[in-house]
């Protein structure tokens, strides 16, 4: 009973944050509602017994990635978005289409999926077990992601540096 109550509380916070992200016009309000979505998703992960995933959800997503978003919004001084003819067309066609798609997917999931219930903390998702799995069964993908992150760092530095940066750096060096 308590499990269901907690699921509903976090789920409602999640859905409300996601809808608020769509309704708000200013990007900073959208970013803050996305933080609410990610925080309540961490609660859902805890209900499913995934402690490690909940922790890195808060640290990486709600912490690092959202700070990056808010930083860029402040850096570019992003204002309220303006409505154009293209956005009106997308609004008229996109929202009904997505509603139909969502209803179809939800109906399929409820009809076809089993009624097996998920107990709270049914699975030991502690860091020790995850770490063992990560460094034994998934060692190669883990190493490949380290290369991916390295390339992403170099790409971000190369893309975000101003155009005249290379010449001046060479002159000074």
């Amino acid at each position: 009973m308590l499990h269901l109550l907690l699921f509903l509380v976090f789920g409602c916070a999640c859905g409300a944050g996601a809808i608020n992200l769509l309704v708000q016009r200013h990007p900073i309000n959208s970013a803050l509602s996305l933080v609410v979505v990610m925080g309540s998703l961490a609660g859902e992960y805890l209900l499913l017994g995934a402690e490690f995933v909940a922790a890195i959800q808060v640290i990486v997503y709600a912490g690092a990635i959202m700070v990056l978003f808010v930083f860029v919004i402040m850096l570019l001084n992003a204002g309220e978005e303006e409505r154009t003819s293209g956005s009106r067309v997308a609004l008229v066609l996109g929202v009904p289409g997505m509603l139909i798609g969502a209803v179809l997917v939800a109906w399929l999931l409820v009809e076809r999926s089993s009624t097996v219930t998920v107990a709270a903390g049914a699975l030991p998702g502690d860091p020790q077990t995850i770490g063992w799995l990560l460094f034994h069964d998934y060692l190669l993908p883990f190493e490949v992601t380290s290369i991916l992150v390295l390339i992403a760092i170099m790409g971000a530095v190369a893309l975000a540096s101003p155009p005249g940066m290379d010449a001046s750096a060479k002159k000074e060096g």
Partner: protein
Amino acid sequence: MVPLSCYLVLSGILFACGVTGFLIKRNIITIFMSIELMLNGVNLSFVAFAAQWKALSGQVFVFFVMVVAAAEAAVGLAIIIAVFRTRKTLNVDYVNLLKL
């Protein structure tokens, strides 16, 4: 005790909100946030299936999805800064030329 379908419906709602935001939003940063919302919806279904089938691999895959999302956010936001520097706008309707 919560049925698995509840978690899947919540994850579907998040994904649908993400796709809708991707379609109707005109600000490039908000579009990017909608993509993050879609990734979060997928992560929730990964964890829910992992809990149902008692397989921890689902949680490891969530870890990989988060790494890819972090890399994507870093590169994407750098691209947004580069676009803003050349176009002086964040509205995607005005970003319609490959070369200025």
